[in-house]
């Protein structure tokens, strides 16, 4: 297909349309950052109020699981970038394969996260008034787990949305919808996925390490 076929009636050319799409995506990512920004603010305030409780609670999380998940997500960012690379060079099937690998990584991430949550549930490490751990008695621990579940929950929802987007892109890539003339959707989908990873890169040290 000729690149002109993708141009909407109100854009003079494809370059400008892609430029618009990119600005739009960056702005959307900014709103996402601020959405999490509110939660990070709450986290900082309560960490400052209950340093000991937060430190003790953090130790109850599995650093191994968190680290594996971080590696998994960072690797998936690489495969998404590769998918865009191949899509741009007209290798739709290879791109689809890369996206499939990304989806597999995302699934691994969710499985590990699910395992962690189950583990927390069993230990009674639950948010707010449901918190009932016998080992962890430090003040502020329930607050830590409130924020932990909200943060990882919201991030998990973003992973699911990202997976949906990537799955659609995968099918389209497989059918050869993109070539060197037009691959913006893959690029934008990839940007969203990078954001999901980026947020995790903030969550990982905040929740598991410090």
């Amino acid at each position, binding site marked *: 297909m000729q690149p002109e076929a993708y141009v*909407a*009636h*109100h*854009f003079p050319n494809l370059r*400008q349309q892609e*430029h*618009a799409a990119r*600005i*739009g995506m960056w*702005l*959307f990512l*900014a*709103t*996402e950052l*601020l*959405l*999490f*920004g*509110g*939660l990070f*603010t*709450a986290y900082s*305030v*309560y960490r400052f*109020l*209950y340093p000991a409780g937060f430190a003790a609670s953090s130790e109850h999380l599995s650093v191994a699981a968190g680290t594996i998940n971080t590696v998994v997500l960072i690797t998936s960012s690489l495969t998404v970038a590769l998918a865009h690379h191949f899509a741009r060079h007209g290798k739709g099937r290879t791109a689809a394969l890369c996206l499939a690998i990304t989806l597999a990584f995302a699934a691994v991430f969710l499985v590990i996260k699910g395992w962690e949550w189950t583990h927390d549930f069993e230990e009674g490490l639950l*948010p*707010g*008034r*449901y918190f009932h751990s016998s080992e962890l008695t430090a*003040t*502020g621990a*329930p*607050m830590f787990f*409130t*924020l932990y579940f*909200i943060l990882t929950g919201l991030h998990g929802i973003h992973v699911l949305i990202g997976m949906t987007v990537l799955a659609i892109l995968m099918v389209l890539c497989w059918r050869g919808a993109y070539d060197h003339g037009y691959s913006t959707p893959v690029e934008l989908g990839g940007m969203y996925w990078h954001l999901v990873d980026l947020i995790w890169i903030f969550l990982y040290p905040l929740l598991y390490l410090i």
Partner: protein
Amino acid sequence: MSQSPATTPPSPADAPAYNPRNYLNAEAGIRSWLLTRDHKRIGIMFLALTTLFFFVGGLFALLVRIELLTPGPTIMSAMTYNRMFTLHGVVMIFLFMIPAIPGIFGNFFLPIMLGARDVAFPRLNLLSLYLYVIGAGIALYGMIHGGTDTGWTFYAPYSTTTITKVVPVLLGAFVLGFSSIVTGLNFIVTAHTLRAPGITWMRMPLFVWSIYATSIIQILATPVLGITLLMVAVEHAFGFGIFDPARGGDPILFQHMFWFYSHPAVYIMVLPAMAVISEVICAAAHKNIFGYKAVAFSSLGIAFVGFFTWGHHLFTSGQSTLDAGIFGVLSMFVGIFTAIKVFNWTATLYKGSVAFTAWFAYFCGFLFFLVFGGMTGIALATVSLDVHWQDTYFVVAHFHFIMVGATIMAWLAALHYWWPKMFGRMYPERWGLVGAVTIVFGFNATFIPQFLLGNYGMPRRYYSYPERFWPLNVASTLGATLLGFGFLLILIYFLWSLKYGRVASANPWGSRGYEWGTLSPPPPENFIGQPVYPSPPHDYTEGSVQSGDPHAAEVTHAA
């Protein structure tokens, strides 16, 4: 004085009076409206919906005022009253103030002013409308079944412990927030990528500058409100304890996070009003704006400084004295940016050619209310004065001066000014003036007594009050009634004019705003041919060419 002076079509004189093929009749049927991607049709749907909610919110306001007619219980119980003022606040702010001017006039005119055929993302634009409908639906469900009684500010821990249904209202506001984000995102990208050749940043109509500044706030502040409201909802539903002192939470943190959005939100409401006024004043005076750059950049200044003033809502909540001082000074700067605009608008009249129309009357009302409302705002930011006024009717009167006084005056000015362009019909000028006078008088009668009530020490959200506050409350209620009649009158003559109004020419006001270059009502693709922009907007000097003139455009197109 009652007749608009420029009723003859502009040059070229052979422009058709009523554009026979326009966006309204290009396609027919309900589907063509519900699935439209035309920014003009989306704007019209926003007009219908926000007006509907304006009258719903106004009805609640009237009920509140009637309840306050006597010191004790008048027509409803305390619980009903509390739900009533919450409904008034939530409906007016989330369903009217925030979406109204950007949704209606931003959607309709921003692309036309930029010489674009549509906004950058037409489908997202339609999504924004649907998010608005869905959000309104969820919020209304909560209001009818259970009725929230927290006030629109949802202060924790009251909002997390109340027995009324807060969660649907919070979720509704969350969804409405996304509608607002999507609209803002669309406008920013449109201004960046779809300006027609010849429209540089420094030639962009001031309306676009102000809407652009609004959009920045919408994008950056709304997500924080979204997550804050979600946290309150989660806390109310499950007792997670984020803002609950009984579980180690901090209710003041809620206030900080809430006002981090909701103070900039005030500018989401008032910047579009300033956008309208910058156009209206030039058209009324037939003169270029005095200080284009000052007006344009002060919009961005307001958007920027507006993010650092939220603490002035917490002077008596117990933030530190130093914080109070910093937030107090920063609030003064927002006042400065507004002052720049006010002086430049007034100075625009200098050496102009001023005609008195209904929309100019609204401009006058706007100017006075903004000056007075803004100055009282500065007075409120003077920390020690605020200690007495905080949470009293003084604050109520102050923000109504800004929101009703400024924003609604601008909304009405915009409706009258652009009505011929949007619908190709004139409103009855004589009735327009009657309406304007009624509104301005009713408004003063409603809110000036409230300033005095605040001085006297009557706190807001009071169901009953000590008897010494009685006379001023009666005055305020009478004013509100007059205001209500005024709005009804305006609604009636606008509806009347849709069918029976005089047919408008392409440019009945002789305005040189870019949007008047196209036909009335505009064709679905906005322009016939590619418009050209030889001169800056609102250039009324001798020998200037009408910008975006369809005929001039055809010549260029041919060449």
